[in-house]
Protein backbone atom coordinates (compact mmCIF):
# COMPACT_ATOMS: atom_id res chain seq x y z
CA UNK A 1 0.00 0.00 0.00
CA UNK A 2 1.50 3.40 -0.96
CA UNK A 3 2.08 5.86 1.82
CA UNK A 4 0.50 8.76 -0.07
CA UNK A 5 -1.90 8.75 -2.99
CA UNK A 6 -3.11 11.98 -4.53
CA UNK A 7 -5.75 11.87 -7.24
CA UNK A 8 -6.78 14.99 -9.14
CA UNK A 9 -6.13 17.38 -6.24
CA UNK A 10 -7.35 20.91 -6.85
CA UNK A 11 -6.89 23.93 -4.64
CA UNK A 12 -7.77 27.56 -5.29
CA UNK A 13 -7.57 30.71 -3.18
CA UNK A 14 -9.64 33.88 -3.40
CA UNK A 15 -12.77 34.50 -5.40
CA UNK A 16 -13.86 36.22 -8.60
CA UNK A 17 -11.08 38.08 -10.39
CA UNK A 18 -8.71 37.47 -7.47
CA UNK A 19 -9.14 33.71 -7.68
CA UNK A 20 -5.84 31.86 -8.00
CA UNK A 21 -5.67 28.18 -8.91
CA UNK A 22 -2.78 26.90 -6.79
CA UNK A 23 -3.14 23.22 -7.68
CA UNK A 24 -4.83 21.76 -10.78
CA UNK A 25 -5.54 18.06 -11.01
CA UNK A 26 -2.34 17.00 -9.24
CA UNK A 27 -1.92 13.24 -8.90
CA UNK A 28 1.01 11.15 -7.69
CA UNK A 29 1.91 8.32 -5.33
CA UNK A 30 4.69 8.09 -2.76
CA UNK A 31 5.77 4.75 -1.35
CA UNK A 32 7.17 3.82 2.05
CA UNK A 33 10.58 5.30 2.86
CA UNK A 34 10.69 7.19 -0.43
CA UNK A 35 12.75 10.38 -0.41
CA UNK A 36 10.96 12.69 -2.81
CA UNK A 37 11.71 16.26 -3.81
CA UNK A 38 9.20 18.73 -5.23
CA UNK A 39 10.68 21.31 -7.51
CA UNK A 40 9.10 24.28 -9.10
CA UNK A 41 9.31 28.02 -9.42
CA UNK A 42 7.81 30.35 -6.84
CA UNK A 43 4.01 30.25 -7.08
CA UNK A 44 3.97 26.85 -8.71
CA UNK A 45 1.93 25.38 -5.85
CA UNK A 46 4.65 23.66 -3.80
CA UNK A 47 3.57 25.14 -0.48
CA UNK A 48 -0.10 24.37 -1.16
CA UNK A 49 0.78 20.80 -2.01
CA UNK A 50 2.85 20.39 1.16
CA UNK A 51 0.05 21.90 3.26
CA UNK A 52 -2.46 19.44 1.87
CA UNK A 53 -0.12 16.47 2.20
CA UNK A 54 0.73 17.55 5.75
CA UNK A 55 -2.97 17.92 6.63
CA UNK A 56 -2.52 21.60 7.39
CA UNK A 57 -5.01 22.46 4.67
CA UNK A 58 -7.71 20.65 2.69
CA UNK A 59 -8.08 20.24 -1.04
CA UNK A 60 -11.09 21.74 -2.79
CA UNK A 61 -11.55 18.54 -4.77
CA UNK A 62 -9.78 15.30 -5.56
CA UNK A 63 -8.87 12.45 -3.27
CA UNK A 64 -5.96 12.33 -0.86
CA UNK A 65 -5.24 8.98 0.76
CA UNK A 66 -2.76 8.49 3.56
CA UNK A 67 -1.81 4.83 3.96
CA UNK A 68 -4.97 3.90 2.09
CA UNK A 69 -7.30 6.01 4.23
CA UNK A 70 -9.09 8.89 2.56
CA UNK A 71 -8.42 12.23 4.19
CA UNK A 72 -11.54 13.80 2.68
CA UNK A 73 -14.13 14.62 5.28
CA UNK A 74 -11.80 14.55 8.27
CA UNK A 75 -12.57 17.25 10.79
CA UNK A 76 -9.97 19.56 12.40
CA UNK A 77 -9.51 17.35 15.45
CA UNK A 78 -8.95 14.22 13.34
CA UNK A 79 -6.40 15.98 11.12
CA UNK A 80 -4.70 17.33 14.25
CA UNK A 81 -4.48 13.83 15.70
CA UNK A 82 -2.98 12.44 12.47
CA UNK A 83 -0.39 15.23 12.38
CA UNK A 84 0.47 14.48 15.99
CA UNK A 85 0.86 10.75 15.41
CA UNK A 86 2.00 10.29 11.80
CA UNK A 87 3.49 13.42 10.28
CA UNK A 88 6.69 15.33 11.00
CA UNK A 89 7.42 18.82 9.75
CA UNK A 90 10.73 20.46 8.92
CA UNK A 91 10.30 24.15 8.24
CA UNK A 92 12.38 26.54 6.18
CA UNK A 93 12.86 28.85 9.19
CA UNK A 94 13.15 25.93 11.64
CA UNK A 95 10.12 27.27 13.62
CA UNK A 96 11.47 26.22 16.99
CA UNK A 97 9.46 27.30 20.00
CA UNK A 98 11.50 30.21 21.41
CA UNK A 99 10.63 29.58 25.06
CA UNK A 100 11.62 25.92 24.91
CA UNK A 101 15.15 24.59 25.22
CA UNK A 102 16.59 22.27 22.59
CA UNK A 103 15.62 19.29 24.73
CA UNK A 104 12.08 20.60 25.28
CA UNK A 105 11.57 21.37 21.58
CA UNK A 106 12.56 17.84 20.59
CA UNK A 107 10.55 16.28 23.43
CA UNK A 108 7.40 18.30 22.70
CA UNK A 109 5.88 15.99 20.01
CA UNK A 110 6.24 13.06 22.42
CA UNK A 111 4.62 15.07 25.20
CA UNK A 112 1.71 15.77 22.89
CA UNK A 113 1.35 12.03 22.39
CA UNK A 114 1.05 11.63 26.15
CA UNK A 115 4.39 9.84 26.62
CA UNK A 116 5.77 9.80 30.14
CA UNK A 117 8.90 11.77 31.05
CA UNK A 118 10.66 8.50 31.78
CA UNK A 119 10.05 7.15 28.26
CA UNK A 120 10.78 10.50 26.60
CA UNK A 121 14.21 11.07 28.11
CA UNK A 122 16.18 8.18 26.53
CA UNK A 123 14.61 8.80 23.12
CA UNK A 124 15.42 12.49 23.16
CA UNK A 125 18.92 11.81 24.43
CA UNK A 126 19.53 9.34 21.60
CA UNK A 127 18.17 11.77 19.03
CA UNK A 128 20.30 14.60 20.44
CA UNK A 129 23.36 12.42 19.99
CA UNK A 130 22.30 11.50 16.45
CA UNK A 131 22.04 15.15 15.45
CA UNK A 132 25.18 16.06 17.39
CA UNK A 133 23.50 18.45 19.83
CA UNK A 134 23.79 16.62 23.14
CA UNK A 135 25.97 19.42 24.49
CA UNK A 136 23.38 22.04 23.48
CA UNK A 137 20.26 20.43 25.01
CA UNK A 138 19.77 23.11 27.68
CA UNK A 139 20.16 26.01 25.26
CA UNK A 140 17.32 28.13 23.96
CA UNK A 141 16.90 28.48 20.17
CA UNK A 142 18.28 32.02 20.08
CA UNK A 143 21.53 30.70 21.54
CA UNK A 144 22.07 28.35 18.57
CA UNK A 145 23.52 28.83 15.10
CA UNK A 146 21.29 28.49 12.02
CA UNK A 147 22.61 25.00 11.29
CA UNK A 148 22.07 23.87 14.86
CA UNK A 149 18.51 25.20 14.83
CA UNK A 150 17.74 23.31 11.65
CA UNK A 151 19.17 20.14 13.15
CA UNK A 152 16.90 20.61 16.16
CA UNK A 153 14.01 21.03 13.73
CA UNK A 154 14.91 17.78 12.00
CA UNK A 155 15.25 15.99 15.34
CA UNK A 156 11.84 17.33 16.43
CA UNK A 157 10.25 16.11 13.19
CA UNK A 158 11.70 12.61 13.53
CA UNK A 159 11.57 11.99 17.29
CA UNK A 160 8.10 10.47 17.06
CA UNK A 161 9.11 8.19 14.14
CA UNK A 162 6.49 9.59 11.77
CA UNK A 163 5.33 7.82 8.61
CA UNK A 164 5.67 11.00 6.60
CA UNK A 165 8.04 13.94 6.88
CA UNK A 166 7.15 17.19 5.15
CA UNK A 167 10.12 19.48 4.63
CA UNK A 168 9.73 22.97 3.19
CA UNK A 169 13.01 24.34 1.84
CA UNK A 170 14.99 22.81 4.71
CA UNK A 171 18.33 24.05 3.39
CA UNK A 172 17.23 27.52 2.28
CA UNK A 173 18.48 29.34 5.34
CA UNK A 174 21.73 27.39 5.60
CA UNK A 175 25.13 27.71 3.99
CA UNK A 176 26.34 24.91 1.76
CA UNK A 177 28.22 23.05 4.49
CA UNK A 178 25.28 23.10 6.91
CA UNK A 179 22.81 22.33 4.14
CA UNK A 180 24.85 19.29 3.15
CA UNK A 181 25.08 18.11 6.75
CA UNK A 182 21.35 18.52 7.29
CA UNK A 183 20.47 16.65 4.13
CA UNK A 184 22.83 13.86 5.09
CA UNK A 185 21.14 13.70 8.47
CA UNK A 186 17.66 13.58 6.93
CA UNK A 187 18.76 10.85 4.55
CA UNK A 188 20.27 8.81 7.38
CA UNK A 189 17.19 9.13 9.48
CA UNK A 190 15.03 8.30 6.48
CA UNK A 191 16.90 5.06 6.08
CA UNK A 192 16.87 4.28 9.82
CA UNK A 193 13.22 5.11 10.50
CA UNK A 194 11.70 4.28 7.14
CA UNK A 195 9.73 7.51 6.97
CA UNK A 196 8.69 8.88 3.59
CA UNK A 197 10.07 12.34 2.90
CA UNK A 198 8.43 15.00 0.77
CA UNK A 199 10.83 17.90 0.38
CA UNK A 200 10.11 21.18 -1.38
CA UNK A 201 13.36 22.66 -2.56
CA UNK A 202 15.09 24.73 -5.20
CA UNK A 203 18.44 23.32 -4.20
CA UNK A 204 20.12 21.20 -6.92
CA UNK A 205 22.10 19.44 -4.24
CA UNK A 206 18.92 18.34 -2.45
CA UNK A 207 17.41 17.01 -5.63
CA UNK A 208 20.53 15.04 -6.44
CA UNK A 209 20.10 13.16 -3.17
CA UNK A 210 16.41 12.33 -3.61
CA UNK A 211 14.90 9.12 -4.99
CA UNK A 212 12.49 11.08 -7.17
CA UNK A 213 11.89 14.65 -8.19
CA UNK A 214 8.37 15.92 -8.87
CA UNK A 215 8.23 18.97 -11.07
CA UNK A 216 5.41 21.46 -10.43
CA UNK A 217 4.58 24.26 -12.84
CA UNK A 218 1.60 26.57 -12.64
CA UNK A 219 -0.18 24.23 -10.24
CA UNK A 220 0.23 21.15 -12.42
CA UNK A 221 2.53 18.17 -12.11
CA UNK A 222 4.86 18.75 -15.00
CA UNK A 223 7.35 15.97 -14.39
CA UNK A 224 8.10 12.94 -12.21
CA UNK A 225 11.68 11.72 -12.59
CA UNK A 226 13.66 9.14 -10.63
Amino acid at each position, binding site marked *: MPRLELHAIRKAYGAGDARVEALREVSFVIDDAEFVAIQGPSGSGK*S*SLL*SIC*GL*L*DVADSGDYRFEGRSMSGLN*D*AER*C*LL*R*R*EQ*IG*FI*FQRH*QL*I*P*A*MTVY*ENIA*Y*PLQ*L*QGESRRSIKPRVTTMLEQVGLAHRQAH*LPHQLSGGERQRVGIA*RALIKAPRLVIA*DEPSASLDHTHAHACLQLMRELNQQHGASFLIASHDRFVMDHCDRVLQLADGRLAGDAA
Partner: protein
Amino acid sequence: MSLLIAWRNVIRDWRRALATILIIAVGQAALLVGGGFVLTAYDSLQEIAKRTQGQVMVVARDALAVGGVDQRLTLTAWQTISDALWSDPRVVRVLPRAEFEGLIRHGALTATFSGTGVDAQNEFKVYGPFLNIPQGELLTPWLSPNDMAEVMLGEQLAQTLQATIGDVLTLHTFRTDGSAVQLPVKLVGLFKTGTPELDDHTLTVTLDSVQNLLGHDRISVLSVYLDLDVNIDEFQQQLQQQLGEQARVITWLRGADVYLGVKALYDRIFSVAGLIIIVVVFLAISNTVALAVYQRRDEIATLGALGAAPLTVCRQFLLEALLLGVIAVGAGLMLGYGVASAINFAELWMPPPPGRSVGYPLYISVSWVHYLAIAAGLLLVTALAALVSVRQATRVNIARALS
Protein backbone atom coordinates in the same frame (compact mmCIF):
# COMPACT_ATOMS: atom_id res chain seq x y z
CA MET B 1 7.42 22.32 32.71
CA SER B 2 4.51 24.32 31.25
CA LEU B 3 4.92 26.82 34.07
CA LEU B 4 8.61 27.22 33.29
CA ILE B 5 7.83 27.77 29.61
CA ALA B 6 5.09 30.22 30.59
CA TRP B 7 7.61 32.12 32.71
CA ARG B 8 10.10 32.24 29.81
CA ASN B 9 7.37 33.58 27.55
CA VAL B 10 6.39 36.21 30.11
CA ILE B 11 9.94 37.52 30.40
CA ARG B 12 10.56 37.34 26.65
CA ASP B 13 8.70 40.61 26.28
CA TRP B 14 9.55 41.96 29.69
CA ARG B 15 8.65 45.56 28.92
CA ARG B 16 5.07 44.65 28.05
CA ALA B 17 4.91 42.27 31.00
CA LEU B 18 6.20 44.98 33.33
CA ALA B 19 3.67 47.51 32.02
CA THR B 20 0.83 45.04 32.54
CA ILE B 21 2.08 44.13 36.01
CA LEU B 22 2.31 47.81 36.96
CA ILE B 23 -1.21 48.56 35.71
CA ILE B 24 -2.68 45.70 37.70
CA ALA B 25 -0.53 46.30 40.79
CA VAL B 26 -1.29 50.02 40.93
CA GLY B 27 -4.99 49.38 40.36
CA GLN B 28 -5.01 46.76 43.07
CA ALA B 29 -3.10 49.00 45.47
CA ALA B 30 -5.67 51.74 44.83
CA LEU B 31 -8.45 49.28 45.68
CA LEU B 32 -6.66 48.14 48.82
CA VAL B 33 -5.85 51.62 50.08
CA GLY B 34 -9.23 53.05 49.10
CA GLY B 35 -10.99 50.04 50.57
CA GLY B 36 -8.88 50.29 53.72
CA PHE B 37 -9.87 53.93 54.11
CA VAL B 38 -13.54 53.09 53.65
CA LEU B 39 -13.34 50.20 56.13
CA THR B 40 -11.78 52.54 58.68
CA ALA B 41 -14.55 55.07 58.08
CA TYR B 42 -17.18 52.33 58.58
CA ASP B 43 -15.50 51.14 61.77
CA SER B 44 -15.24 54.69 63.14
CA LEU B 45 -18.83 55.53 62.37
CA GLN B 46 -19.99 52.24 63.84
CA GLU B 47 -17.95 52.95 66.96
CA ILE B 48 -19.40 56.46 67.26
CA ALA B 49 -22.93 55.13 66.78
CA LYS B 50 -22.45 52.35 69.31
CA ARG B 51 -20.80 54.63 71.85
CA THR B 52 -23.43 57.35 71.58
CA GLN B 53 -26.55 55.20 71.53
CA GLY B 54 -25.46 51.77 72.77
CA GLN B 55 -25.40 48.51 70.85
CA VAL B 56 -29.00 47.87 71.80
CA MET B 57 -31.76 50.33 72.62
CA VAL B 58 -35.01 49.84 74.50
CA VAL B 59 -37.79 52.20 73.46
CA ALA B 60 -41.49 52.39 74.00
CA ARG B 61 -43.56 50.00 71.91
CA ASP B 62 -45.07 52.83 69.87
CA ALA B 63 -41.97 55.02 69.75
CA LEU B 64 -40.68 53.79 66.39
CA ALA B 65 -41.16 56.04 63.44
CA VAL B 66 -40.15 55.42 59.86
CA GLY B 67 -36.43 56.00 59.35
CA GLY B 68 -35.32 56.13 62.95
CA VAL B 69 -36.22 56.39 66.58
CA ASP B 70 -38.86 58.86 67.62
CA GLN B 71 -37.42 60.40 70.72
CA ARG B 72 -40.62 61.27 72.49
CA LEU B 73 -40.61 60.61 76.19
CA THR B 74 -42.73 57.49 76.11
CA LEU B 75 -40.80 54.74 77.86
CA THR B 76 -42.37 54.03 81.22
CA ALA B 77 -41.38 51.64 83.99
CA TRP B 78 -37.89 51.70 82.57
CA GLN B 79 -36.26 51.40 85.99
CA THR B 80 -37.38 47.77 86.28
CA ILE B 81 -35.97 46.98 82.85
CA SER B 82 -32.76 48.81 83.71
CA ASP B 83 -32.31 46.91 86.96
CA ALA B 84 -32.82 43.60 85.19
CA LEU B 85 -30.32 44.55 82.50
CA TRP B 86 -27.70 45.63 85.03
CA SER B 87 -27.83 42.14 86.52
CA ASP B 88 -27.10 40.54 83.12
CA PRO B 89 -23.37 39.65 82.98
CA ARG B 90 -23.27 40.48 79.26
CA VAL B 91 -24.31 44.07 79.95
CA VAL B 92 -21.60 46.63 80.74
CA ARG B 93 -23.77 49.69 81.15
CA VAL B 94 -27.41 50.80 80.94
CA LEU B 95 -28.02 54.47 80.25
CA PRO B 96 -31.44 56.12 80.39
CA ARG B 97 -31.85 59.18 78.16
CA ALA B 98 -34.65 61.70 78.06
CA GLU B 99 -34.88 63.93 75.00
CA PHE B 100 -36.71 67.23 75.35
CA GLU B 101 -36.90 70.61 73.62
CA GLY B 102 -37.53 74.21 74.53
CA LEU B 103 -35.97 77.65 74.87
CA ILE B 104 -32.87 78.62 76.82
CA ARG B 105 -32.33 82.15 78.05
CA HIS B 106 -29.23 83.94 79.21
CA GLY B 107 -29.98 87.52 80.17
CA ALA B 108 -31.61 89.11 77.15
CA LEU B 109 -30.50 86.35 74.77
CA THR B 110 -32.74 83.39 73.99
CA ALA B 111 -32.25 80.36 71.75
CA THR B 112 -34.06 77.14 71.00
CA PHE B 113 -32.48 73.96 72.25
CA SER B 114 -32.65 70.23 71.89
CA GLY B 115 -31.68 68.71 75.22
CA THR B 116 -30.88 65.34 76.68
CA GLY B 117 -31.25 64.29 80.27
CA VAL B 118 -28.63 61.73 81.19
CA ASP B 119 -27.35 59.58 84.03
CA ALA B 120 -24.37 61.81 84.84
CA GLN B 121 -22.58 59.09 86.74
CA ASN B 122 -22.31 56.73 83.78
CA GLU B 123 -23.11 58.67 80.62
CA PHE B 124 -19.70 60.15 79.94
CA LYS B 125 -17.82 56.90 80.50
CA VAL B 126 -18.99 55.46 77.20
CA TYR B 127 -17.76 58.14 74.85
CA GLY B 128 -14.06 57.39 75.14
CA PRO B 129 -12.01 59.39 72.59
CA PHE B 130 -15.18 60.94 71.16
CA LEU B 131 -15.76 63.05 74.30
CA ASN B 132 -14.51 66.57 73.62
CA ILE B 133 -14.87 69.10 76.45
CA PRO B 134 -13.10 72.29 75.35
CA GLN B 135 -14.08 74.23 78.48
CA GLY B 136 -15.38 73.45 81.97
CA GLU B 137 -16.19 70.03 83.31
CA LEU B 138 -18.76 67.26 83.23
CA LEU B 139 -22.08 67.31 85.05
CA THR B 140 -21.86 66.43 88.74
CA PRO B 141 -23.28 62.92 89.27
CA TRP B 142 -24.77 63.53 92.68
CA LEU B 143 -26.27 66.92 93.50
CA SER B 144 -27.79 67.70 96.87
CA PRO B 145 -31.39 68.96 96.80
CA ASN B 146 -30.20 72.47 97.56
CA ASP B 147 -27.77 72.62 94.66
CA MET B 148 -28.73 74.32 91.44
CA ALA B 149 -29.20 72.04 88.43
CA GLU B 150 -26.31 71.95 86.00
CA VAL B 151 -26.10 72.16 82.23
CA MET B 152 -23.50 71.50 79.51
CA LEU B 153 -23.93 73.41 76.27
CA GLY B 154 -22.78 72.82 72.77
CA GLU B 155 -19.91 75.21 72.05
CA GLN B 156 -21.81 77.21 69.40
CA LEU B 157 -24.94 77.45 71.56
CA ALA B 158 -22.84 78.92 74.37
CA GLN B 159 -21.40 81.45 71.92
CA THR B 160 -24.89 82.36 70.71
CA LEU B 161 -26.00 82.96 74.31
CA GLN B 162 -22.68 84.62 75.23
CA ALA B 163 -22.57 82.29 78.20
CA THR B 164 -19.40 81.38 80.08
CA ILE B 165 -18.68 78.73 82.65
CA GLY B 166 -20.45 79.46 85.91
CA ASP B 167 -23.23 81.56 84.35
CA VAL B 168 -26.81 80.83 85.31
CA LEU B 169 -29.24 80.24 82.43
CA THR B 170 -32.91 79.34 82.35
CA LEU B 171 -34.53 76.42 80.51
CA HIS B 172 -38.13 76.95 79.35
CA THR B 173 -40.33 74.15 78.10
CA PHE B 174 -43.89 72.84 78.19
CA ARG B 175 -45.30 69.87 80.04
CA THR B 176 -47.70 67.48 78.33
CA ASP B 177 -50.64 69.27 79.97
CA GLY B 178 -49.60 72.47 78.16
CA SER B 179 -48.29 74.31 81.22
CA ALA B 180 -45.06 76.29 80.77
CA VAL B 181 -42.25 75.45 83.16
CA GLN B 182 -38.75 76.75 83.69
CA LEU B 183 -35.59 75.63 85.43
CA PRO B 184 -32.54 77.71 86.31
CA VAL B 185 -29.32 75.86 85.50
CA LYS B 186 -25.65 76.57 86.04
CA LEU B 187 -23.34 76.25 83.05
CA VAL B 188 -20.58 73.82 84.06
CA GLY B 189 -19.07 72.81 80.73
CA LEU B 190 -19.07 73.05 76.97
CA PHE B 191 -18.93 70.13 74.58
CA LYS B 192 -18.00 69.80 70.97
CA THR B 193 -19.45 67.02 68.85
CA GLY B 194 -17.54 68.07 65.72
CA THR B 195 -20.81 68.81 63.94
CA PRO B 196 -21.57 72.57 64.11
CA GLU B 197 -25.26 71.92 63.30
CA LEU B 198 -25.51 69.97 66.56
CA ASP B 199 -23.29 72.16 68.70
CA ASP B 200 -25.43 75.25 67.99
CA HIS B 201 -28.58 73.90 69.68
CA THR B 202 -27.84 70.90 71.89
CA LEU B 203 -27.41 70.75 75.63
CA THR B 204 -27.12 68.10 78.30
CA VAL B 205 -28.57 68.07 81.81
CA THR B 206 -29.04 65.37 84.41
CA LEU B 207 -32.00 63.04 84.11
CA ASP B 208 -33.26 64.29 87.47
CA SER B 209 -33.37 67.83 86.10
CA VAL B 210 -35.51 66.77 83.14
CA GLN B 211 -37.85 64.76 85.32
CA ASN B 212 -38.22 67.69 87.77
CA LEU B 213 -38.83 70.04 84.88
CA LEU B 214 -41.38 67.86 83.11
CA GLY B 215 -43.00 66.38 86.19
CA HIS B 216 -42.76 62.70 85.21
CA ASP B 217 -40.14 59.97 85.10
CA ARG B 218 -40.59 58.77 81.55
CA ILE B 219 -37.57 58.59 79.26
CA SER B 220 -36.99 58.37 75.52
CA VAL B 221 -34.62 55.47 75.33
CA LEU B 222 -32.67 53.03 77.46
CA SER B 223 -29.27 52.54 75.83
CA VAL B 224 -27.65 49.19 76.58
CA TYR B 225 -23.88 48.74 76.28
CA LEU B 226 -22.65 45.19 75.91
CA ASP B 227 -19.39 43.32 76.19
CA LEU B 228 -17.59 43.39 72.84
CA ASP B 229 -17.87 39.64 72.32
CA VAL B 230 -21.64 39.55 72.79
CA ASN B 231 -23.68 38.78 69.68
CA ILE B 232 -25.79 41.92 69.35
CA ASP B 233 -28.57 40.44 67.22
CA GLU B 234 -28.91 37.43 69.49
CA PHE B 235 -29.04 39.65 72.60
CA GLN B 236 -31.63 41.91 70.97
CA GLN B 237 -33.87 38.95 70.13
CA GLN B 238 -33.58 37.46 73.62
CA LEU B 239 -34.31 40.79 75.28
CA GLN B 240 -37.28 41.40 73.00
CA GLN B 241 -38.66 37.99 73.96
CA GLN B 242 -38.23 38.82 77.65
CA LEU B 243 -39.88 42.23 77.38
CA GLY B 244 -42.64 41.11 75.05
CA GLU B 245 -45.15 43.90 74.50
CA GLN B 246 -43.68 45.98 77.31
CA ALA B 247 -41.15 47.72 75.05
CA ARG B 248 -39.43 47.53 71.71
CA VAL B 249 -35.78 46.44 71.49
CA ILE B 250 -33.73 47.63 68.53
CA THR B 251 -30.06 47.45 67.60
CA TRP B 252 -27.73 50.40 67.12
CA LEU B 253 -28.10 50.09 63.33
CA ARG B 254 -31.74 51.20 63.52
CA GLY B 255 -30.77 54.64 64.77
CA ALA B 256 -27.42 54.99 62.98
CA ASP B 257 -28.61 57.31 60.22
CA VAL B 258 -25.20 58.92 59.75
CA TYR B 259 -23.44 55.56 59.52
CA LEU B 260 -26.01 54.18 57.07
CA GLY B 261 -25.92 57.34 54.96
CA VAL B 262 -22.14 57.46 54.78
CA LYS B 263 -21.93 53.72 54.13
CA ALA B 264 -24.42 53.95 51.27
CA LEU B 265 -22.45 56.86 49.77
CA TYR B 266 -19.03 55.18 50.16
CA ASP B 267 -20.38 51.89 48.86
CA ARG B 268 -21.52 53.64 45.69
CA ILE B 269 -18.24 55.55 45.26
CA PHE B 270 -16.14 52.49 45.95
CA SER B 271 -18.24 50.33 43.63
CA VAL B 272 -17.78 52.79 40.76
CA ALA B 273 -14.03 53.16 41.43
CA GLY B 274 -13.68 49.38 41.75
CA LEU B 275 -15.57 48.84 38.51
CA ILE B 276 -13.28 51.29 36.70
CA ILE B 277 -10.18 49.52 38.03
CA ILE B 278 -11.60 46.12 37.11
CA VAL B 279 -12.27 47.35 33.56
CA VAL B 280 -8.71 48.73 33.33
CA VAL B 281 -7.25 45.42 34.55
CA PHE B 282 -9.48 43.51 32.15
CA LEU B 283 -8.38 45.65 29.22
CA ALA B 284 -4.70 45.47 30.22
CA ILE B 285 -4.70 41.69 30.37
CA SER B 286 -6.85 41.14 27.30
CA ASN B 287 -4.67 43.57 25.35
CA THR B 288 -1.48 41.84 26.50
CA VAL B 289 -2.81 38.41 25.59
CA ALA B 290 -4.22 39.61 22.27
CA LEU B 291 -0.85 41.15 21.35
CA ALA B 292 0.98 38.01 22.39
CA VAL B 293 -1.34 35.88 20.28
CA TYR B 294 -0.93 38.22 17.31
CA GLN B 295 2.86 38.34 17.58
CA ARG B 296 3.18 34.60 18.08
CA ARG B 297 0.90 33.44 15.28
CA ASP B 298 3.71 31.46 13.65
CA GLU B 299 4.47 29.80 16.98
CA ILE B 300 0.80 28.93 17.37
CA ALA B 301 0.78 27.58 13.82
CA THR B 302 3.90 25.52 14.53
CA LEU B 303 2.30 24.04 17.62
CA GLY B 304 -0.77 23.24 15.54
CA ALA B 305 1.37 21.63 12.83
CA LEU B 306 3.06 19.48 15.47
CA GLY B 307 -0.37 18.26 16.51
CA ALA B 308 -1.16 20.44 19.52
CA ALA B 309 -4.92 20.78 19.91
CA PRO B 310 -6.25 24.36 20.01
CA LEU B 311 -7.17 23.81 23.65
CA THR B 312 -3.55 22.92 24.46
CA VAL B 313 -2.34 26.11 22.80
CA CYS B 314 -4.96 28.21 24.58
CA ARG B 315 -4.05 26.61 27.90
CA GLN B 316 -0.45 27.74 27.46
CA PHE B 317 -1.51 31.35 26.82
CA LEU B 318 -3.94 31.20 29.75
CA LEU B 319 -1.17 29.92 31.98
CA GLU B 320 1.03 32.81 30.91
CA ALA B 321 -1.74 35.33 31.61
CA LEU B 322 -2.43 33.79 35.01
CA LEU B 323 1.27 33.79 35.85
CA LEU B 324 1.37 37.46 34.91
CA GLY B 325 -1.75 37.99 37.03
CA VAL B 326 -0.28 36.19 40.05
CA ILE B 327 2.93 38.23 39.85
CA ALA B 328 0.94 41.46 39.44
CA VAL B 329 -1.43 40.62 42.29
CA GLY B 330 1.53 39.76 44.52
CA ALA B 331 3.13 43.08 43.62
CA GLY B 332 -0.20 44.84 44.18
CA LEU B 333 -0.55 43.28 47.64
CA MET B 334 2.92 44.46 48.61
CA LEU B 335 2.38 47.90 47.11
CA GLY B 336 -1.02 48.32 48.78
CA TYR B 337 0.31 47.16 52.13
CA GLY B 338 3.36 49.40 51.77
CA VAL B 339 1.31 52.50 50.94
CA ALA B 340 -1.19 51.78 53.74
CA SER B 341 1.62 51.26 56.24
CA ALA B 342 3.40 54.44 55.12
CA ILE B 343 0.20 56.49 55.49
CA ASN B 344 -0.51 55.02 58.93
CA PHE B 345 3.09 55.58 59.99
CA ALA B 346 2.98 59.22 58.84
CA GLU B 347 -0.04 59.88 61.13
CA LEU B 348 -1.69 62.21 58.64
CA TRP B 349 -4.91 64.08 59.38
CA MET B 350 -7.82 64.51 57.05
CA PRO B 351 -9.56 67.91 56.81
CA PRO B 352 -13.04 68.15 58.35
CA PRO B 353 -15.64 66.51 56.10
CA PRO B 354 -18.70 68.54 55.03
CA GLY B 355 -20.89 69.31 58.03
CA ARG B 356 -18.09 68.72 60.54
CA SER B 357 -15.80 71.18 62.31
CA VAL B 358 -12.94 68.83 63.16
CA GLY B 359 -10.68 66.68 61.04
CA TYR B 360 -9.85 63.09 61.81
CA PRO B 361 -6.72 60.93 61.67
CA LEU B 362 -6.17 59.24 58.32
CA TYR B 363 -5.85 55.56 59.04
CA ILE B 364 -5.92 52.85 56.39
CA SER B 365 -7.29 49.57 57.65
CA VAL B 366 -5.26 46.48 56.69
CA SER B 367 -7.67 43.57 56.55
CA TRP B 368 -6.29 40.35 55.12
CA VAL B 369 -9.77 39.16 54.29
CA HIS B 370 -10.23 42.33 52.24
CA TYR B 371 -6.77 41.88 50.69
CA LEU B 372 -7.35 38.25 49.75
CA ALA B 373 -10.85 38.96 48.39
CA ILE B 374 -9.51 41.70 46.10
CA ALA B 375 -6.57 39.52 45.01
CA ALA B 376 -8.89 36.62 44.21
CA GLY B 377 -11.26 38.95 42.35
CA LEU B 378 -8.46 40.40 40.23
CA LEU B 379 -7.14 36.92 39.41
CA LEU B 380 -10.63 35.99 38.29
CA VAL B 381 -10.78 39.13 36.13
CA THR B 382 -7.35 38.21 34.72
CA ALA B 383 -8.52 34.72 33.83
CA LEU B 384 -11.71 36.03 32.20
CA ALA B 385 -9.82 38.67 30.20
CA ALA B 386 -7.28 36.10 29.05
CA LEU B 387 -10.08 33.71 28.10
CA VAL B 388 -11.70 36.35 25.93
CA SER B 389 -8.48 37.17 24.06
CA VAL B 390 -6.98 33.71 23.86
CA ARG B 391 -9.83 32.51 21.69
CA GLN B 392 -8.05 34.23 18.80
CA ALA B 393 -5.35 31.58 19.06
CA THR B 394 -7.84 28.96 17.91
CA ARG B 395 -8.57 30.98 14.75
CA VAL B 396 -5.01 31.07 13.44
CA ASN B 397 -4.83 29.51 9.98
CA ILE B 398 -1.87 27.17 10.28
CA ALA B 399 -1.03 26.90 6.57
CA ARG B 400 -1.25 30.67 6.04
CA ALA B 401 0.74 31.52 9.16
CA LEU B 402 3.55 29.15 8.19
CA SER B 403 3.74 30.17 4.53
